[in-house]
């Protein structure tokens, strides 16, 4: 009989492949709250697990998959707003492509309203904006994250870099000057001074670049041209990056800080100073 049961099960398994329709449904939050009572947090865990399992599911349409995963995490985080990792999965892990990242940002911003004290959420929003190339927005959220409890120190140190990438080294300079006045730890002061020098030079060189443009009405081809025009005695040394250069595409002073980016720009002809 045991053998019959075993083989019977195998026959059923192999012979009949039923095309069962999958049912993608998340109950309304109000009903769930009433039904779960004081087990709301446990119910949230169940939807969290459902969300995790949904990540592995195959969908023809990517955005429908994003919607389905986010719906599960939305319920989980609404029932228990402290399920911080739910925001991470729904807002960062599944967010790919411009549309997906924007959806991720929407999800995280909703989570930020519910959970105002978790530094991770504004950090992840900043990360998504960074992926979209909106550095000023990224730095805005990193700054928000940096002021929340338990936020790691690096959140304060990366902001000047984003200001620089956003084409606003002057804001980065202001930020670092403010930070220098608020920090007492000698080790932290050391790296702040180093970054401060680096960004000060960029701001100084950009100022000279503006003067050049005002005098001659065009962008110089090389950073050395500023020296040739008598605006600059010497090109400052870049202690933090690998040397300053002129990006002729945007007519901006840059640092050979990111080698891969530098190479890319060199290949595209953007970095004359890299040659």
């Amino acid at each position, binding site marked *: 009989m045991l053998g019959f049961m075993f083989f019977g099960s195998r026959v059923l398994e192999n012979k009949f492949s039923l095309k069962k329709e999958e049912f993608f449904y998340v109950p309304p939050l109000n009903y769930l*709250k009433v039904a779960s*009572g*004081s087990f*709301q947090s446990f119910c949230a*865990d169940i939807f969290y697990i459902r969300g995790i399992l949904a990540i592995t599911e195959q969908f023809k349409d990517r955005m429908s998959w994003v919607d389905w995963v986010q719906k599960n995490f939305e319920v989980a985080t609404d029932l228990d707003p402290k399920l911080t990792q739910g925001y991470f999965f729904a807002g960062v892990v599944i967010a790919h492509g411009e549309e997906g990242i924007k959806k991720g940002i929407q999800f995280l911003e909703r989570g930020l309203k519910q959970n105002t004290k978790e530094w991770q959420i504004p950090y992840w929003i900043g990360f998504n904006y960074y992926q979209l190339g909106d550095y000023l927005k990224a730095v805005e959220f990193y700054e928000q994250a940096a002021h929340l409890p338990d936020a790691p120190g690096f959140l304060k140190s990366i902001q000047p870099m984003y200001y620089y990438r956003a084409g606003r080294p002057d804001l980065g300079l202001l930020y670092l000057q403010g930070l220098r006045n608020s920090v007492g730890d000698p080790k932290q002061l050391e790296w702040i001074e180093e970054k401060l020098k680096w960004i000060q030079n960029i701001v100084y060189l950009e100022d000279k670049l503006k003067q050049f443009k005002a005098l001659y009405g065009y962008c110089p081809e090389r950073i050395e041209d500023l020296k040739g025009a008598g605006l600059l005695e010497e090109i400052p040394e870049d202690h933090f990056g690998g040397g300053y250069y002129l990006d002729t595409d945007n007519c901006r002073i840059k640092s050979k800080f990111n080698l891969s980016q530098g190479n890319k720009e060199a290949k595209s002809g953007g970095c004359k100073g890299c040659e």
Partner: protein
Amino acid sequence: MREAFAVAVLNFKQGLREKLFWGVIFFFAFFLSLCVLLGKLSPGETEKVLRNAGLSGIELSGLVLVVFSLVLSFKKEEESRFLEIYLSNFSRTNYLSGKVIGYLLICLFYLLLSGLGYILILFLYKSFIWQVAAGFYSLFLKLSILICFSLVFCCLFSSPIISLFCSLSLYLASEAAYPALKIVSLGPNRVTLPLFKLIYYLLPNMNKLDIKSLVVYGELPSLSFFFSTGLYTLVYILFLWLIARFIFLKREY
């Protein structure tokens, strides 16, 4: 009082001998392994899910244990001649008091046993925080009220099925009362709001008694909260015991 304790000890011993008690223990052991699986399925939140699922499991299995065990034992004593023997030796008041105390002891013993298993699992998976122990206090308060409600229904109805359904329905109603009240207060129809508020305050306030969602994150309410909830439960139990006693004294056996 001595008589009441004698009845309580008898009920406690009888309760532990019941298959239901060990069945619930077995179920809880199975549930603990499910908790481990749930924890593994929750990357990033494993510890919280493990703590939360365990406490929820203890509450649900404790609920099944106290309600079913009390209702069935009451019926069994009524159908056999045990009740007559009890009532010929003890007063009705002492019998009821003993029943309540006995089942409170069973509940406490169950919480102790399941708590040990739960804490062991938490230790094994490095998820233990001492705050979860406070969760047991709130579970005990919730189950204590439920024991007394079941006793009232046992005295009120001769059918054990009706008593069971009433006890479980009351539990569900008191669990759902808070979110229901919140929804009604946010909705457009505010005429029914006073009625909902009345029901909410009459039913045991399970929402306030429950601190599972706090302790799993390592947070604890103030000391005055523990004192207030303890006092609230004591008064509630006393009130229910008085109702049960009133009905029990009126009944003929």
